C-alpha cells in the first residue's frame, strides 16, 4: 500500500483516503473522515466499495501533528486543589477538607506561559492558549488575572494571538463574573440543569450558578459554554436539561458527559449512568438543541475533527497541578488512584526555575493512541470516539487499557451509527441526492 504521506509528496495533487463501511438498520453507510463525507450506498453494491479512494483534497493536519517532543502551544493550569462545592460525583478525591490547600505559584504560571510562547515561535504557530482549571479556579482569582495579563502581554510581544479560557463551577461574586466575561475568550460553567437536578448534584448551588451564567451571558453571549454532568438519576431527564439550558441560554454550546466511577463518583448515589441510556438521552436532545440554536457535544462524538487521538493525553497536554507537577490529564493528577502517576511526566524545578520532564514516562504516554488498538483499525466509529478516554479506560483496566477498546465500545458504535443516520435523514445542508 502506498503511504498517504508519501503519495502526497510524489504525486503533488492527489492523496489517499481510507473509507469505513458499516451497516445500520440494513442501510449501508460509508464514511470518509479525512474528506468529511458520509455516503449511503445501495446494499447491493456493498461488496464493491473500495477500502481506499484517491482525491485531490489533502489529508487533514491536526495542530498537534508537527510538534516535537515537549513542544506545547498551550497550558492548562490547575490553580488550586480547593473547591467551594462538594459535588458528590466529583472525580477528585472526596476528602478535600482533609488535604492541604495548595495554590499554584505565580512564578510557575509565568514560566509555563513563557515556555509555550517559545514553543510557538519555534514551530511558527500563530497562537498560544491558557486554560484556568482547578479545583475551583476562581478561588485563586488573582492568579487568573495575573496569568491572563501575562498571556496577553507575552503573545503581543511575540506577535502572536492568545486565547484565555476557564472552566468554573460558577459560584462567584458578580464582579468576578463580569471580569471573566470581559477578559476571557471562553468560559465553561458546570451546570447540570434545572434546580431539582443541579442542587442534588452540585451542593445546592443553583441560584449562584444561574446568576453567574446570566451575568456572563448578558455581557458575552458567544463566550459561554456549559458542562453538563449526567448521573444515573438525571440521565432520563437529559432532554429536559437541554430544554432548560436552551431556553435560558439560546445559541450556547453544551458539553454533555456522564459521571464516571472515579474519586467521589464511586460511592455516590448519583453515579455513572447506563451507557445506552446516556446516548439515547443525547439523541433525544438533538432536536431541542437545534430548536434553540444550541450545539451539543459529548467527548466521543467528534464531528469534523482533524486529530486521530481522543485528547492530548498522548504527549500533547501540558497541565500543571497546584504543586507544580506536569501531567497530560487533569483528572489523573488530582486523584489518588494509583495509576494516576503514569500520566504525570514532569515538574517545575523551583531551584532551576525550569520545567523538568521524564522522557521515559513521556515516551510511554505518546504510545497511547488509538492506532495501537486493533479493534479500532477498521471501525467506522473510530474517527469519532478515537479509542475513548485513556484515563477512564485505565481506571477500568489498569493493565491492558492501551490496546483494548473502550469499556463502552458497543454502545458507542450504536450511538455513532444512529448519529450518522440522523445526519443523513435530517438533511442538514445535504449536498446531493441521486436516484
Amino acid at each position, binding site marked *: 500500500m502506498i503511504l498517504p504521506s508519501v503519495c502526497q509528496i510524489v504525486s503533488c495533487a492527489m492523496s489517499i483516503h481510507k473509507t469505513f463501511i458499516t451497516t445500520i438498520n440494513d442501510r449501508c453507510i460509508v464514511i*470518509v473522515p479525512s474528506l468529511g463525507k458520509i455516503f449511503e450506498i445501495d446494499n447491493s453494491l456493498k461488496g464493491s466499495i473500495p477500502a481506499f479512494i484517491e482525491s485531490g483534497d489533502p489529508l487533514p493536519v491536526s495542530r498537534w501533528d508537527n510538534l516535537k517532543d515537549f513542544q506545547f502551544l498551550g497550558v492548562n493550569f490547575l490553580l488550586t486543589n480547593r473547591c467551594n462545592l462538594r459535588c458528590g460525583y466529583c472525580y477528585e478525591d472526596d476528602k478535600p477538607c482533609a488535604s492541604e490547600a495548595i495554590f499554584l505559584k505565580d512564578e510557575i504560571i509565568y514560566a509555563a506561559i513563557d515556555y509555550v510562547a517559545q514553543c510557538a515561535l519555534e514551530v511558527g504557530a500563530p497562537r498560544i492558549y491558557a486554560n484556568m482549571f482547578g479545583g475551583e479556579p476562581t478561588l485563586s482569582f488573582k492568579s487568573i488575572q495575573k496569568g491572563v495579563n501575562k498571556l496577553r502581554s507575552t503573545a503581543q510581544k511575540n506577535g502572536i494571538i492568545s486565547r484565555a479560557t476557564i472552566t468554573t463551577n460558577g459560584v462567584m461574586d458578580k464582579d468576578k463574573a463580569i471580569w471573566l466575561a470581559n477578559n476571557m475568550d471562553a468560559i465553561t460553567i458546570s451546570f447540570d440543569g434545572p434546580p431539582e437536578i443541579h442542587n442534588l448534584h452540585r451542593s445546592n448551588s443553583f441560584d449562584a450558578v444561574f446568576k453567574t451564567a446570566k451575568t456572563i451571558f448578558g455581557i458575552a453571549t458567544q463566550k459561554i459554554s456549559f458542562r453538563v454532568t449526567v448521573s444515573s438519576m438525571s440521565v432520563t431527564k437529559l432532554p429536559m436539561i437541554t430544554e432548560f439550558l436552551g431556553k435560558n441560554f439560546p445559541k450556547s454550546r453544551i458539553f454533555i458527559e456522564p459521571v464516571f466511577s472515579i474519586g467521589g463518583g464511586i460511592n455516590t448515589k448519583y453515579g455513572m449512568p447506563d451507557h445506552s441510556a446516556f446516548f439515547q438521552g443525547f439523541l433525544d436532545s438533538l432536536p431541542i438543541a437545534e430548536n434553540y440554536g444550541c450545539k451539543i457535544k459529548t467527548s466521543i462524538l467528534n464531528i469534523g475533527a482533524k486529530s486521530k487521538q481522543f485528547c492530548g493525553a498522548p504527549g500533547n497536554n501540558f497541565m500543571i497541578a497546584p504543586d507544580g507537577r506536569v501531567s497530560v490529564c487533569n483528572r489523573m493528577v488530582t486523584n489518588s488512584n494509583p495509576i494516576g502517576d503514569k500520566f504525570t511526566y514532569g515538574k517545575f524545578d523551583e531551584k532551576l526555575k525550569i520545567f523538568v520532564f521524564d522522557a521515559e514516562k513521556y515516551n510511554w504516554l505518546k504510545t497511547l493512541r488509538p492506532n495501537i488498538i486493533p479493534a479500532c483499525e477498521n471501525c467506522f466509529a473510530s474517527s469519532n470516539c478515537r479509542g475513548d478516554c485513556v484515563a477512564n479506560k485505565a481506571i477500568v483496566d489498569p493493565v491492558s487499557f492501551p490496546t483494548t477498546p473502550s469499556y463502552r465500545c458497543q454502545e458507542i458504535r450504536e450511538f455513532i451509527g444512529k448519529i450518522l443516520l440522523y*445526519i443523513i435523514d435530517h438533511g442538514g445542508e445535504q449536498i446531493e441526492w441521486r436516484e
Partner: protein
Amino acid sequence: MPTIEDLRQMATTEVDISSANALGIFTSNRDCGDNDGCDGDCGGDGSEGC
C-alpha cells in the same frame, strides 16, 4: 485507484459531515475554528479543543 467520483457514482446520498452543525451537533471544524481534540476535562473545559 478508485476516486471519490467513483464512490459518488455508487451513492444514493452524499452528505458533508459538517452539515451536522445545522442539526444542533457541535462540529469541531465550525465551532472550534482550527481547533481539535480535547485539551483537558474531556468534553467541556472551555479550552481550545472544546
